[in-house]
């Protein structure tokens, strides 16, 4: 006997929860399967930045890669609209605040980067403007005198990563979706016109095998996407990127904006409960298996160079952070792809199975979810998904064979 659903979502992060909620809202019978607890990995551990300007990692490798990265701007603009409306649609707060974000320059070269970056973004229709240091400090008195210029985008802000995913999952639950934690997918096989999902459900009593059937399967599994692709014999290449974040004890509000930097890895913001979140992409060390591949199920190790670098970057532009008591520095493992573009679309050669992951999947999560559901329904997805077609890697791997 197996249980039958319209759609099965694999992965209980923000994207999976958004998929389950949106599917359930359309009346679908949905099951969400999560091997751990909801929201425990990248979705709950990232900084929750809603950033739409090009990031440091996109501009640090030269102008060509910045131009390529800018092609994702429509997705970002769509995401900005999506986040602004999501809480109201759900009827629960997601901790979204869009009070604007800065990207800062402290050297003449960085000012030049900002100038070109701002012009490029404006071409793509992003509301962003370049300010000099004085203008920036008038808007943000917490900035140090070393700030020479700042690009300001009023759309930017933050969502609360602690609550956004679970809130969407609760929304799905209210609409009749099933949410099963400690349930790991171990096989995906065609069954009739749909798919059979084999999963292990773990409890204190032991393990139980489940067989669930659905017309469509949505893979929302972040770094575990590649493993799921292997179950389908399809190449869905992802690269885990272990990144460090730090959070302070609550302090009186003084940073209403998102703060990023054009010349170093930095993101800084203050949450609704007064804590200051500091990150920006400083790496941590992933544990490696004997064969050199990263072990995703073990905790990454912090690097001292990252602790030093991130702290210095933050104190440099927001001097008040020097004495802020830091309560936690932790590592979240985010997912990127070999060409830095997300994977969004149907899994090649596996009709009925869809996937999304890779690159800003928190910021873009709600947009990814809406696009996948449209694709599954045979509707146009609203944005051009061709650059993100998962088949691009399948073609490469076939060419190699």
């Amino acid at each position, binding site marked *: 006997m197996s249980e039958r659903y319209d759609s099965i979502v694999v992965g209980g992060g923000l994207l999976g929860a958004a998929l389950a909620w949106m599917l359930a809202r359309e009346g679908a019978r949905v099951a969400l399967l999560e091997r751990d607890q909801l*929201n425990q990995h990248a979705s709950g551990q990232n900084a929750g930045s809603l950033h739409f300007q090009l990031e440091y990692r996109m501009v640090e490798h030269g102008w060509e890669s910045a131009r390529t990265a800018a092609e994702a701007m429509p997705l970002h603009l769509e995401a900005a609209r999506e986040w602004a409306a999501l809480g109201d649609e759900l009827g629960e707060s997601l901790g979204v605040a869009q009070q604007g974000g800065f990207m800062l320059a402290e050297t003449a070269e960085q000012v030049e980067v900002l100038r070109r970056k701002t012009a490029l973004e404006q071409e793509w229709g992003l509301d962003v403007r370049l300010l000099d240091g004085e203008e920036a400090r008038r808007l943000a008195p917490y900035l140090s005198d070393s700030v020479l210029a700042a690009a300001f985008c009023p759309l930017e802000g933050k969502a609360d990563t602690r609550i956004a995913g679970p809130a969407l999952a609760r929304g799905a639950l209210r609409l009749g979706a099933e*949410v099963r934690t400690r349930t790991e997918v171990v096989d995906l096989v065609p069954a009739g016109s749909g798919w059979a999902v084999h999963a292990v459900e773990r409890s*204190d009593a032991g393990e139980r095998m489940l067989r669930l059937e659905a017309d469509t399967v949505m893979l929302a599994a972040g770094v575990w996407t590649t493993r799921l692709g292997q179950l389908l014999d399809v190449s869905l290449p992802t690269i885990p990127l272990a990144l460090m974040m730090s959070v302070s004890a609550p302090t009186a509000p003084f940073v209403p904006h998102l703060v990023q930097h054009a010349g170093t890895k930095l993101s800084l913001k203050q949450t609704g409960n007064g804590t200051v979140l*500091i990150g920006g992409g400083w790496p941590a*060390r992933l544990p490696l298996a004997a064969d050199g591949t990263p072990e995703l199920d073990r905790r990454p190790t912090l690097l001292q160079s990252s602790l030093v670098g991130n*702290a210095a970057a933050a104190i440099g532009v927001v001097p008040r952070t020097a004495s802020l008591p*830091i309560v936690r520095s932790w590592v979240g493992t985010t997912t990127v792809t070999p060409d830095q573009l997300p994977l969004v679309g149907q899994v090649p050669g596996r009709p009925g199975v869809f996937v999304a992951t890779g690159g800003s999947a928190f910021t873009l999560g709600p947009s990814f979810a809406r696009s996948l559901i449209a694709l599954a329904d045979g509707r146009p997805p609203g944005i051009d998904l061709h650059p993100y077609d998962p088949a691009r890697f399948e073609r490469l791997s076939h060419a190699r064979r």
Partner: protein
Amino acid sequence: MTAAHDLVVVGAGPAGAAAALAAADAGLDVLVVDEQRAAGGQIFRTTPPEFGGRRKLPTGYPWAGELLDRARSHPGIAWRHGATVFGILPVAVDAAAGADASAGPGSAGFDVLTSDPADPARSGRVRARRVLIASGAYDMPVAIPGWTLPGVMMAGAVQGFLKSQRLRVADRVVLAGSHPLLLIVADQLLAAGARIEEVAIARGLPSPVELLRALPAVPGHVRLLGELAGCVLRLLRAGVRISTGTVPTEVLGDGRVQGVRLARADRGWRQTGPARTVDADALVLGYGFHPSTELARQLGCGLDWDSAQGGWIVRHDAQLETTVAGVHVAGEPSGVAGAEQSRAEGELAGLTIAAALGRPVPERALAGARRRIRSASRFSGVVQRMFAPRREALLELATPATEICRCETVTRGTIDGFLDENPFAGTADAVKLACRSGMGPCQGRYCESAVAGLVAKARGTGVGQAGRFAAHIPVKPVPLQAYVALADDPPAL
């Protein structure tokens, strides 16, 4: 490249001091880091040197003075007092010249990250070939209505103020708990001129069977038991009311403690009768201890749930090495067992670390340390069994409005509500992420067991299955600038 210490010991209590001494005697270069101003740990806290006067140590541990004196004057031991170890990182194998890349994390040693709360600029890192976690224990929190009011203090806190600061925290005091320390603190408060309004002991009197079982464990610990008996005698002689089978159900007061509600409890510590009010300025809680395991957690060491031994304890082998190679544990983090056993474990850990680093260690010395652990554990085992906290019953003292997480002011109602609305959540960490309980400055030390207890109750599992909070760097909050201080070469010590 800075020279590494052979061994960095975290904690200067009986375990840490004994380990440092044994290791240094065997020829190791040892650094001890401790948050207090002087060696001795919580149990041997004494007045600061500025006060003058003679050192006073508890009478139950005749070896303490000599241990501390020998350790302090040993040329092979460096001391860093007033410093917090806020994290330990294995040195990257590829970053350490000549290290064996196949030997795994820790084979190239560890960077011990320290901060000096009084002078953040003095923060830095120290390299160690091996580390010993001897970080002791802290008083077990018990969330009861009103326990956040100023005037509610832990037994260890009150005793610390008396012993090391000659400060009586209040005039009129109620003490509630189940651990023998409670009676010692009551006696000390009495001697300090406080009025002991009542001592409420959760358990009943020991049954004849329990006493019979306890007898074989007594030899060698007569002084300790004698001290305890003396406390009870003096309290009774002073007319102090000692109520057994009694639990506190609420702390009353506006802005500070003004009274405590006490009620009868059954053998399982569950309230049976109506509560009565006792006027008081302070409530002292003493239900036992939780081991300080945060560094072991942060390092990724395995832990096991053992309620009688204090909750989550660090898994270790017969050599007291944890599941992370090169990281050892001694004293309360290996299971709360008191000063006697801590000292013996410290000694064994110090010796085995010295042997592992190639120093000659006589088998006789190892055997002696093992014998002392066995002997001490017979006594501590009995104490653990007799005074094991009834955690489920204590948890029921919390009402929906009671704050479980003191830092983030998260109530039991909030946590129970979250568990109701989110049937897919089933771990302490899931509650932490969603409710913020455990995210504040104490990093969950004072709410973890209650949060896990609520999860276990809601999901029908055990507290151990509900899991524990992950620990991260910094294991105690440090100013952001302490991170920048890690950039320089470790300061010479």
